[in-house]
């Protein structure tokens, strides 16, 4: 029998994965975005031959290098953690999930690692053209790695192109194109890379604004901002568009997640989007309490977001937990029953196979096939277990959206005053601008929470809950490594911030 593990250990394993992923995610979006902008600066330098552009390129490259090293350090642990802490997951879906990880290594990481050395140390070793080519290759390599890891992640959210093989008792790949061109993968990749580009633009805007406020490197800061504001504005428009697309995909494939984002317990026609609200912390599915202590809704907007139609029906959390016959939604309770039957039939099938009783095996297999789509639900205890943490999902989603809108406005203002040539005098905007990178970090981490917390309790949506995906470890062991990672990563983060701050205060070289 596939066992459920000790819940305390599972939660520590989740905490450890969340910790390592969130630390990793501090560094990755900056790398994804800033590599393109640096390649662009580098191109201007090669085309103009201007030393100022060279110094500017080198300055941002240096900051990128510091960030990149720690991104690599936190990244290796992510790959191996699937094995160390989620070994049952690795076995049950490795046939599908391993492939994008290997491809990421072959196609993306080597590109990144090989050309990184040329980008940093090639100034006098290779031709100008090849050096510039290397900068573009680093940007391409980083973003290709995002393609593959997001293909893997999207597959966890919307597992396509696979089938459960009762003989090996694991999920196996049936169609590689389905896995790669998964609609969730497309929306995830475009949303992640465009928001990373926005974050990197805000990084440059924040530091450059600080320079202008301090009266240092003004020419370099203005040039940096001019490029970053254009990149940022384009990226913010694309982020909003792809974010809308991601929400639409959620409504198709993870409707429970969308309902949790909005704290929507009972489905509605013409459902409104919460513009601002406070979640009632004691609210449970099925009780009679209000979901919000306070809320302002924009009527019809959630229906529009979910179904592209403002009057349409958007199902709520309780519709999925208890079922809704009118809309043909099967409740989680019934799914759990079917899932348990599937698991029992799978056991019977394996036992009959081992005993060499072909007839009994065939019969058990037929019975298993009737309920095989619900196998993941068989591991859950109660229908309410299918509900993700609502408050965390709700706040993370809304913080992300509100900050995203603010960033668009800030980029417009920076671009406007850059074109007018009066940016240096807008001290209020420059003051606001210095905070933008930190807010972009908050939005970025919130986005990660939205994607990953919103899919609980599933490691693989509807197929494998986190409770059966872990390794057979004691809670104490995982706790120990959790604190080891916490201590080490925090130490490295403090060092990184110190080094980065020092390099910023030193500023770019000036001829």
């Amino acid at each position: 029998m596939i066992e459920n593990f000790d819940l305390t250990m599972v939660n520590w394993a989740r905490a450890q994965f969340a910790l390592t992923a969130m630390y990793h995610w501090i560094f990755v979006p900056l790398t994804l975005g800033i590599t393109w902008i640096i390649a662009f600066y580098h191109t201007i330098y090669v085309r103009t031959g201007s030393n100022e552009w060279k110094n500017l390129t080198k300055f941002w490259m240096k900051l990128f290098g510091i960030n990149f090293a720690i991104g690599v350090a936190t990244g290796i642990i992510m790959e191996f953690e699937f094995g160390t802490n989620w070994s049952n997951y690795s076995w049950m879906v490795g046939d599908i999930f391993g492939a994008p990880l290997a491809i990421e290594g072959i196609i993306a990481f080597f590109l990144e690692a090989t050309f990184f050395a040329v980008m940093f140390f090639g100034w006098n070793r290779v031709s100008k053209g090849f050096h510039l080519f290397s900068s573009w290759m680093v940007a391409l390599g980083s973003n290709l790695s995002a393609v593959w890891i997001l293909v893997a992640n999207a597959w966890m959210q919307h597992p396509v192109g696979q089938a459960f093989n009762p003989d090996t008792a694991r999920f196996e790949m049936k169609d590689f194109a389905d896995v790669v061109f998964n609609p969730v993968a497309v929306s995830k990749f475009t949303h992640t890379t465009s928001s990373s580009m926005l974050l990197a633009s805000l990084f440059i805007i924040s530091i450059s604004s600080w320079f202008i406020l301090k009266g240092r490197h003004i020419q370099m800061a203005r040039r940096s901002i001019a490029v970053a504001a254009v990149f940022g504005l384009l990226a913010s428009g694309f982020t909003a568009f792809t974010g809308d697309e991601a929400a639409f995909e959620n409504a198709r494939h993870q409707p429970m997640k969308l309902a949790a984002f909005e704290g929507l317990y009972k489905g509605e026609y013409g459902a409104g989007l919460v513009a601002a609200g406070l979640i009632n912390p004691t609210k449970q599915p099925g009780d009679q309490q209000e979901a919000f202590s306070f809320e302002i809704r924009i009527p019809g907007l959630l229906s529009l977001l979910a179904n592209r139609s403002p009057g349409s029906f958007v199902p709520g959390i309780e519709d999925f937990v208890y079922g809704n016959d009118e809309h043909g939604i099967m409740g989680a309770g019934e799914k759990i029953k079917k899932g348990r039957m599937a698991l029992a039939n799978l056991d019977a099938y394996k036992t009959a196979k081992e005993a060499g009783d072909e007839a009994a095996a065939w019969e058990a297999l037929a019975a298993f096939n009737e309920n095989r789509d619900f196998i993941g639900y068989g591991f859950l205890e109660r229908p309410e277990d299918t509900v993700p943490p609502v408050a965390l999902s709700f706040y993370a989603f809304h913080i992300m959206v509100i900050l995203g809108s603010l960033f668009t406005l800030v980029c417009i203002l920076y671009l406007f005053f850059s074109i007018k040539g009066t940016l240096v005098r807008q001290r209020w905007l420059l003051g606001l601008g210095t905070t933008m990178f930190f807010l972009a970090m908050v939005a970025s981490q919130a986005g990660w929470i939205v994607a990953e917390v919103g899919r609980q309790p599933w490691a693989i949506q509807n197929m494998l809950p986190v409770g059966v995906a872990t390794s057979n470890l004691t809670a104490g062991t995982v706790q120990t490594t959790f604190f080891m990672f916490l201590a080490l990563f925090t130490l490295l983060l403090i060092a990184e911030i110190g080094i980065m701050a020092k390099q910023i205060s030193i500023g770019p070289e000036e001829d």
Partner: protein
Amino acid sequence: MIGNLDYSTLQHLWWLLCSVVGALFLFLNFVQGGQSLLWQVAKTGLEKDLVINSLGRKWELTFTTLVLFGGALFASFPKFYSTSFGGAYWVWILILFTFIVQAVSYEFRKKPSNLLGSSVYELFLFINGSVGILLIGAAVGTFFTGSNFELSSYNMVTWTNPLRGLEAAFSLFNLSMGLFLVFNARTLGAMYLVNDIDFSATPDMENRLRKACMVNFICSLPFLGYVLVSLLLMDGYGIVDDRGTIAMVSRKYLANLLANPWLIGLLAAGLVLVILGVFITAKSRSRAGIWFGGLGTVLVGLAVLLLPAYNNTAFYPSKADLQSSLTIFNASSSQFTLTTMTYVALTIPLVLAYVAYVWWAMNRTRLSAEELSDETY
């Protein structure tokens, strides 16, 4: 053509591909070897900077090869991934820790306000080069000596030793494998630094490096000898029938060598090349030793990784429950996935080609003291 390959051929092919990546990783361990030599061969600040900057332009290649080794194993032998990583938890976590601290050390070491100071980052590099490689060697040793796990009928792993993998380091064979890799990495490290650095400002370091190459090679010999003799004499974990039953087979690895004489060829050619590389480096003024030592290490590594998997052998055997042992047949991905990944693997020659081109372009001129004034670690 790839679409017509049968399952067993694909399983053999993917073990070969994983082994090639693993063997390349062992060659690229010259970075780790160089790190562990730092304090011994570099006596002044300039010498240290030269060593660190020379290795610092290659460390990511080694790191990425390790990441690819993990990814390739995950995609092609997921049961190994789940059993070994989830089971031998502590040994892998410690290995990973040594690589986490390595990754930041090059970038952070010389930067002002780096919190810990240069010597701590140098210590991190030493730990990665010594403890990291030792543990990797011990883990490779378990391919022959076996581990302590049981798999349920649903392939969930239970580790039966509370040390969770660290017990591997207490076997003389595994320890010898680890120490051999450490000394071999140091031998290669010395060869690479001799190849890459322009010693006109630091002539003493060149002599120290050339000597270190020989000394570390000699240190590696007893461990290599013990590993090779043990391999010829020890019993191994063989697949003894069509149902995949595992049993202890007397002198299994000797039998594997005799059944595949080309493995003996790989081993012998590899060893000769390494010896040649050592003598070229230590006894002449040539810089070319790394090419012989590197290729030799790849060939030896390949033989060592193929030996426990081919010829109906369990590559990740369980001492606790023989029938839980992993073979390339019971641990692999499905035929569909292996076929798909084989198409992807067609891009590997392209990757190797641009890696080689960039290596050539970046190493055309040796790293000199003057260059360190700009863009350094």
